[in-house]
């Protein structure tokens, strides 16, 4: 019995994970704690500790730009995650057809992931620029009535962001889903063919539901990048035209660096954490309950 404790806290394991402990506790718990703390202060340029209660939150939610940002992130998130998944899945399906030059295609679909979002934003901004890009080029080639300038219009600029997001992110979705697709038992395909089920139907009703793991991974990755979407917006639209493409992350940075209102910036950042916290807690409870059930059932 005497060694039981040592077995439970195996010393080298604890030592080996000291970096993890430091990061998890030191950075993510304490750091975030401070950020939340500052959101209750009137910090301007530098963090201070004169507490003002919920004043910063009240100002935050009275700010039109924040409201627009929140709307935008939902729209952008839903659109880009759905599109990336669908497009990524399509690509994966086509890649899975024993095609020639698979390596080449895969490299092409994946390389945008290696490009920084700044570059992505700049290039697409340029392609979509009506005077220099696509529109000008097509008009120069004689299609003078051609009109395509999504970044100019407040109503369409967000779509352009989604579009660039797809360019950057669907390759990774493809890679993950392709791995998932290859993991599906080949006999399922055969069974479906024998049953006379059309291919698209097999994908929709049978295979896609079987790839939960791959979809979950892809989904989590996309969510991470959606929450953090900053570079892309800055490089492509700078939040404009007007405030049409402002996002919470952009908003937070603007508050901290330009508006020099750290308190309110931290309030906004805290608000950004909330949904993540809720989702994670929900997921945690789910797994915990599933474990409990499995233990009870065993």
């Amino acid at each position, binding site marked *: 019995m005497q060694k039981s404790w040592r077995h439970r806290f195996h010393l*080298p394991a604890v030592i080996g994970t000291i970096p*993890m402990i430091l990061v998890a506790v030191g950075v993510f718990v304490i750091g975030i704690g401070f950020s939340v703390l500052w959101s209750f202060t009137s910090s301007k340029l530098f963090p201070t500790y004169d507490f003002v209660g919920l004043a910063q939150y009240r100002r935050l939610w009275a700010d039109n730009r924040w409201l627009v940002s929140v709307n935008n992130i939902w729209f952008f998130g839903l659109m880009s995650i759905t599109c990336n998944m669908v497009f990524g899945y399509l690509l994966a399906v086509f890649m899975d057809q024993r095609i020639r030059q698979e390596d080449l295609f895969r490299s092409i679909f994946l390389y945008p992931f290696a490009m920084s979002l700044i570059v992505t934003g700049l290039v697409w901004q340029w392609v979509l620029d009506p005077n220099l890009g696509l529109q000008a080029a097509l008009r120069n080639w004689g299609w003078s009535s051609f009109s395509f300038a999504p970044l100019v219009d407040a109503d369409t600029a967000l779509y352009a962001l989604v579009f660039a997001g797809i360019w950057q992110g669907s390759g990774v979705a493809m890679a993950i889903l392709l791995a998932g697709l290859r993991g599906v038992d080949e006999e399922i395909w055969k069974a479906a063919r024998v049953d006379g089920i059309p291919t698209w139907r097999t994908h929709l009703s049978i295979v896609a539901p079987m790839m939960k793991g791959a979809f979950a991974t892809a989904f989590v990755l996309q969510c991470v990048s959606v929450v*953090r979407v*900053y570079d892309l917006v800055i490089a492509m639209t700078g939040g404009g035209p007007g405030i049409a493409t402002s996002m919470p992350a952009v908003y937070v940075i603007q508050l901290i660096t330009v508006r020099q209102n750290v308190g309110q910036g931290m309030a906004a950042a805290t608000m950004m954490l909330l949904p993540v916290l809720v989702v994670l807690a929900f997921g945690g409870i789910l797994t915990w309950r599933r474990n409990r059930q499995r233990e009870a059932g065993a």
Partner: protein
Amino acid sequence: MTAGQITEIQPAQQAPNQAGVAPFGPKPRRISAGRIGIYAFLIVAALFFLIPVYIMIVTSLKGMPEIRLGHLFNLPGEPTFQPWADAWLHACTGRDCFGLSPGFYNSVKITLPSVAISIICASINGYALTFWPYKGANLLFGLLVFGAFVPYQVVIYPLIIGLSSVGLFASLPGIIIVHTIFGMPILTLLFRNFYAAIPVELFKAARVDGAGFWRIFFYIMLPMSVPITVVAVILQVTGIWNDFLFGIVFAGRSNWPMTVQLNNIVNTTTGVREYNVNMAATILTAAVPLLIYFISGRWFVRGIAAGAVKG
């Protein structure tokens, strides 16, 4: 003689009016139509993905007057490599006009140790979490995963204060620590999933052989982690190489990475913009991650299959 041979004869005897039935040639149509569709889709998609590189390359070879004409997709009328030379050697950022080359070495200086250290940390984490879970380890892991969702900016302020209090702010070790911190959540997740798929028996066998925590890690697990390490390397190299925000804040003036210089060349508040130089500079900056990608893309997908799908 044998039964096997007898069966071979039978059908020949049974085969009826062979002349009457059309020879059952291959049934080719299903193949071609579908295949053409597949390739058409893939090629169109590939073109979509390639547009930006094409434009970057073409533009980087044009002169500014030609660019202003707006013939974005045209090949350069008078190709010139001047923009490339400018970008690498002459472009000014402030009063230094040495192009991107100095930043390149800084980026290497930052990226190599950051990648190595973050991967070592993450692999130890994943290993410990899988094979030596102590009480509370999974809670730590949960916090770490939560960290993956935290917008960087939220923790920048506390990090600045924390690092400066230990005297590492604005230094090479400082930026390396920061990259290690922010790489840890996803990498740990990857390694944990990967190790979870390794048979426990291997671990048990090593313990029976008398190996301890570190020896099992270095002699048994690490050599087996090549596929997932490749994924981690790719993720980290691209992430760290492309990073601008941390580099400018935490690296310190003398260690500014290439991206800071790229930013200086590409962006200016009141100065003149030279698109061709910008594009050349962009390509040069992206070259390292791209190269790594093209070299190890095949491994990337394989590693993802090993470490990500089971998520």
